[in-house]
């Protein structure tokens, strides 16, 4: 390493511009939000004029049934969406993992849904679910069934929102699972094949366990993103009917802009942030643990190799 000889300030000069922007426009706003969550503040006031009310926003939220309903809608949505997407995405990756002409074209088509603006995705699905002009209800009517209120009934609305999210994000899991599959050590698979393992056995005993680290990271990344989903639902249902599709991110935005209670919205943002912190902490601890395990395994392997060498 020749690096010590460079000016000591260089790394800071490289880092400073990005750090400055992140501090000004990311860290400072988050600190500001923590402070705002202790205020009774509406958008027509300057922040200095708002009354300090301590933890009242948090307590009010804690005791509010509608907040808890939103909370559980969020958890249900994220849990359901991520588990269904994991099953379908990994399943498809296992099915389609073969040398196939045109695989590149297929992948291109699969990533389209997640590149398009969430607003547009919401628009598309809102059109398709529409009671009169939407294609789904038209097909149902042509087949002689009645109209289904896809977005008008609370159970259906929740299911419709979940389906739209699955359409948009399953490809993400599929692509990552496929990448993981294709980077598996060929020797292990070859050995299993020589030993006569059936396709099913290869999947359950070799492919899935070897893919596990990537799958868990993928799952957690997706989980964090599922808590950020907002625009699709905003366009499709705006949280309705009732509170059936009002996830927390959407509730924060409505509390701030429609009900004009910035303090309460800030407190809610903090609850959401704490939840996400927990999830990220789990992800971080897991990555560290698996790294440590891999290092230990490598050390053992190295020692074994050394012992073998000495024996020879």
């Amino acid at each position, binding site marked *: 390493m020749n690096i010590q000889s460079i000016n000591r300030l260089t790394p800071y000069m490289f880092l400073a511009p990005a750090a400055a922007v992140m501090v000004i426009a990311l860290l400072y706003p988050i600190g*500001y939000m923590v402070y705002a969550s202790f205020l009774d503040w509406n958008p027509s006031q300057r922040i200095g004029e708002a009354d300090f009310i301590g933890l009242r926003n948090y307590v009010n939220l804690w005791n509010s049934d509608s907040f808890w309903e939103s909370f559980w809608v969020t958890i249900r949505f994220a849990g359901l969406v991520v588990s269904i997407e994991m099953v379908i995405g990994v399943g498809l990756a296992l099915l389609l993992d073969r040398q196939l002409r045109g695989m590149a074209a297929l992948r291109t088509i699969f990533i389209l849904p997640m590149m398009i603006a969430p607003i547009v995705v919401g628009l598309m699905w809102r059109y398709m679910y529409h009671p009169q002009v939407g294609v789904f209800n038209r097909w149902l009517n042509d087949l002689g069934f009645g109209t289904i209120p896809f977005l008008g009934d609370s159970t259906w609305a929740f299911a419709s929102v979940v389906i739209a999210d699955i359409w948009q994000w399953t490809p993400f899991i599929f692509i990552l699972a496929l990448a993981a599959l294709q980077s598996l050590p060929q020797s292990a698979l070859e050995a299993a094949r020589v030993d006569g393992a059936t396709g099913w056995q290869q999947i359950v005993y070799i492919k899935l366990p070897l893919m596990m680290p990537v799958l868990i990271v993928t799952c957690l990344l997706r989980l964090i993103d599922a808590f950020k989903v907002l625009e699709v639902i905003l366009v499709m249902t705006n949280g309705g009917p009732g509170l059936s599709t009002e996830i927390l991110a959407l509730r924060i935005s409505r509390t701030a802009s429609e009900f004009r209670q910035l303090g309460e919205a800030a407190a809610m943002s903090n609850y959401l942030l704490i939840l996400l912190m927990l999830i990220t902490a789990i992800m971080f601890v897991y990555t560290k643990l698996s790294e440590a395990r891999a290092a230990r395994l490598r050390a053992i392997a190295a020692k074994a190799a050394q012992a073998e060498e000495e024996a020879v």
Partner: protein
Amino acid sequence: MSRISQHDETRTNPAFYVLLICLVVMSAGPIVLMLANSFKLNVDITSPTAGLLFMPTLQNYETALCEFLWYEPEHLRRCDPTFGRALVNSLIISLVSTALTLVLGCMAAYSIVRFRFMGRDAASFTTLIMRMVPPAVLLVPVFGIWNEQFGLDGTRSGIILVYVAMNLPFVIWILQSFIVQVPIQLEEAARIDGAGPFRVFFLVVLPLIKPGLAAAAIFTFRVAWNEFLLANALSDRNSRTVPVTIVNSITEYNIDWGVIMATGMLLAIPPILFTFFASRQIITGMTAGAVKG
């Protein structure tokens, strides 16, 4: 090797191709449907007998883009410049914020990867944590700060500032994994030849991580181009972006489906083009973020 390929050939049965076709139809179907609808008159969209047969028309696009047309569309009584203005705003905001994010992000990523300095782990950990902050969480503070302290409320620079900050953690994270792969010997050679750290970075490292930069650029552009919530809070009449105008034109009843589908398509076109021309970079970017962990 030949055994494996044989094996695969024998297993590929017709059901497999049926599955593939279903998947393609399912993922591209809604987009194609929307594209088709954007070429229809509202009469054709809402009539119960609508099918695949209709007269394609550019009317919806003419309505949306009337400001840029050199002729006066016949069906329009008055040209509404909202969408055209929003398109210009969206382009400026996304391009500028992408460029800024890339420059700042690759410098920061380089310093985190290549130098050992005080606070290096803290910097790397902070970027990781910041990645998970949902835009909705920034809504309240950004509203207050941009308005009262920075005086950037309603300007394009205000929106650009948030987008740069929002995208930096992700860009730093992605680029780190590309910079790690640049052989350090190259940099040392350049340095022995007398290049300073900045020249090494711009002339040696940057050209080598072009694929990473492309992936990062696409993701950043996509976020800035598609974002609605913060743009909605920060923009005024003159700095509105396309997503904001689309949401504003969705009212509870009586949606002008044709025009809204056309504007939606216009919003979707740049990401779709990126996907067709750079799908390999997109996939590299996605996997670099997760498979590496």
